[in-house]
């Protein structure tokens, strides 16, 4: 589903993603683990067509992120690390706006929006201008916006940011169900518990390179550690 070949992205002299090869299969939850500034967000933005690669290639379900950017966006739902929203639109107006941008007719959009609002516990907030949303509500709205149209893939940058433990649990089960239904999730996190709980495979990213890749058990074995947290620290260095 998500494929990168020698993917490279630079910001001036800084190489944010350095010749990365990656193959995320359909129906799996794939986690990118890394410290701040490791290159996870840049990689995800390239898959979302928000950044153009400087070298190599990236495809989503066979569609090239540069040549077929609109097709790629139609396949995916995205939650950025700090989702800013249209603060003067209500939640309902915002979701209808996004449905229109995706070409979903109003009669088909209504039940999809209602389902997403129920799933993400946003029913009462839909009539509220998003200026009034708390951090957690914004995150839930961004998750609803990324998923309501039933995409083939999800790109989630730190999706548990701002969520309370109860909702984090709901999100974890949703992601497992989404993958079980054939969807593919590419998520980044620096919380190893989340990766252990939901990811089929993980890649540890450090200074723009993938330094370990496999199931959680395989990565632990590669690092010679007994849990993912210790494996992560051993792979990227630190105390």
């Amino acid at each position, binding site marked *: 589903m998500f494929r990168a070949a020698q993917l490279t992205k630079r910001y001036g002299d800084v190489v944010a993603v350095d010749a990365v090869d990656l193959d995320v299969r359909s129906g799996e939850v794939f986690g990118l683990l890394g410290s701040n500034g490791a290159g996870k967000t840049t990689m995800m933005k390239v898959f979302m067509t*928000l*950044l153009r690669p400087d070298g190599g290639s990236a495809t989503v379900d066979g569609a090239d992120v540069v040549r077929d950017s609109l097709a790629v966006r139609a396949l995916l739902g*995205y939650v950025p690390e700090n989702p800013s929203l249209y603060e003067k*639109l209500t939640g309902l*107006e915002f979701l209808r706006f*996004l449905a229109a941008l995706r070409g979903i007719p109003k009669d088909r959009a209504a039940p999809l929006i209602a389902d997403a609002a129920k799933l993400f516990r946003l029913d009462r907030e839909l009539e509220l201008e998003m200026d009034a949303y708390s951090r957690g509500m914004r995150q839930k709205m961004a998750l609803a916006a990324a998923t309501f149209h039933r995409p083939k893939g999800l790109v989630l940058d730190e999706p548990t940011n701002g969520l309370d433990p109860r909702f984090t649990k709901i999100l974890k089960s949703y992601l497992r169900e989404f993958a079980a239904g054939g969807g593919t999730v590419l998520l980044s996190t620096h919380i190893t518990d989340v990766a252990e709980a939901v990811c089929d495979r993980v890649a540890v990213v450090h200074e723009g390179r993938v330094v370990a890749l496999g199931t959680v058990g395989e990565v632990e074995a590669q690092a010679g550690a007994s849990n993912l947290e210790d494996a992560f620290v051993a792979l990227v260095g630190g105390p």
Partner: protein
Amino acid sequence: MRAYAVYAAEVLDGVRAVAARIRRQRSGAVWFALLFAGTVWLALRLAEFTLVIGLPPTLEITPGTLLFLAFFATLGKGAVDAYHRAIRPDSLVFLLSQPMDRRAVALGKFLTVLAFNLAFLAAALGLAVLFVAAGMRVPLPWEFGAGLVLAVVAGLASGFALAVLGSLGTWRRKAAGLAAYAPVIAAVYVALESSDPTLPQAFASLLAVTPVALAGVLATSHLLVEAWNNQTSGRRRTGEPRPYLRLRDAKLEALVDAELKTMVRKRQVALSLATVVVLGAALVSLYVIVGPPVGLPRRFAGLFYPIVVAMGIYVAAATQLTVPGMSALGKELDRLWILKSHPVPGGTVYRAKTAAILLLVPAILVAVVLPLPVLAGFPLAVISLLLLVAVAASFALAALGVYLGARSPNFDPNTQGLPDSIALYNVFLAALVLAFVVIGVPVGVYQFDPVLGILAAILIADFGALGVVLAAEGGARRYDRLES
């Protein structure tokens, strides 16, 4: 001391943002310096010329009038600056949560507004002194220079206070606050304009009013939290959401609707409508006060009011079409990911942004262009010509803003996408030249042959529309290449 800390951080942040933009566009800074000096020179030349040929006897422009105009213009600028810098920013929460008096926060923010605006005034006055020293025959008494500084300080302080009062939670509180402050503005008007003071008297009046205006900043500081809360909080909207406009293309309709709802709910539309109505009222007032331009040479007399209307068209189009066009992309700031991660081409995004801006054109025609010519009984052909050149200028100036805003979007959160002062100044002058050509050519042709003049105006309006299409397409290409 704490106010100074706020001021120092704000100025440092602002100066670095401007420096970064200058580094990106060095030619813009050079143009700014040249155009700024040129404007000061032109203003002095105009004053010199006016002193020689005189004005119509009914049109009395005294030094007090000029000082009041400076006060009134900076009042508007101060209100806009205060709104973006002191009332609207989310980052204000960091300052409001510090163990410090709210007066220090307000004062620090106000000092920042003051510093950036006084820097322009200092440059203008310095250049004026140089030009006068070089031989221009314009009297520049010290009372006028000092009065100008006081008028700007009082104007900015009044604008700051009015921005806070106008942002309060309920209409009743807004009205009460604005009514409480109105006597200060009335006092400035009486002291500078209606009492026809001498220059020393005007200076003395400003010396008395400025501390009152500054006290207004401190007095409204305890309302800053309420204003900030009100401006950054949302309200509940029950019922079925409906689009403001029905369009055949559903994506375009959704994009235009999101733009319009945001503009309406942020009160930008109300502010724009108020601005064009006030501008139209000012033109009508000028006609009522001055009457027919009897004192002017005959060849100028017939052109006097058409030129006044043309100036109104320029001001309305530059402020209400060019500036929003420039901020069309920049105002997306951190939420650009929404549009860029959805399957919607840049062409549709830019058509929607341009359409939302152009919706104000009918208001400009009705409020600014029509009232004075109708009141003055202009012939139908002249009214038609003015309407056509207004449409042409609106298209051309909107196209200019859309093109420049896509070419160099400003993603600075302090200005919410609005261009910085240097860019704004350059653009206003570029818009002036463009408006002069777009309005001047058909009006010039009309002098020789009215039919040809009308046809020229239609042709230029067509070119203006083409400019809008090309600017939107160019903007779309830039948008598609933009990395988020």
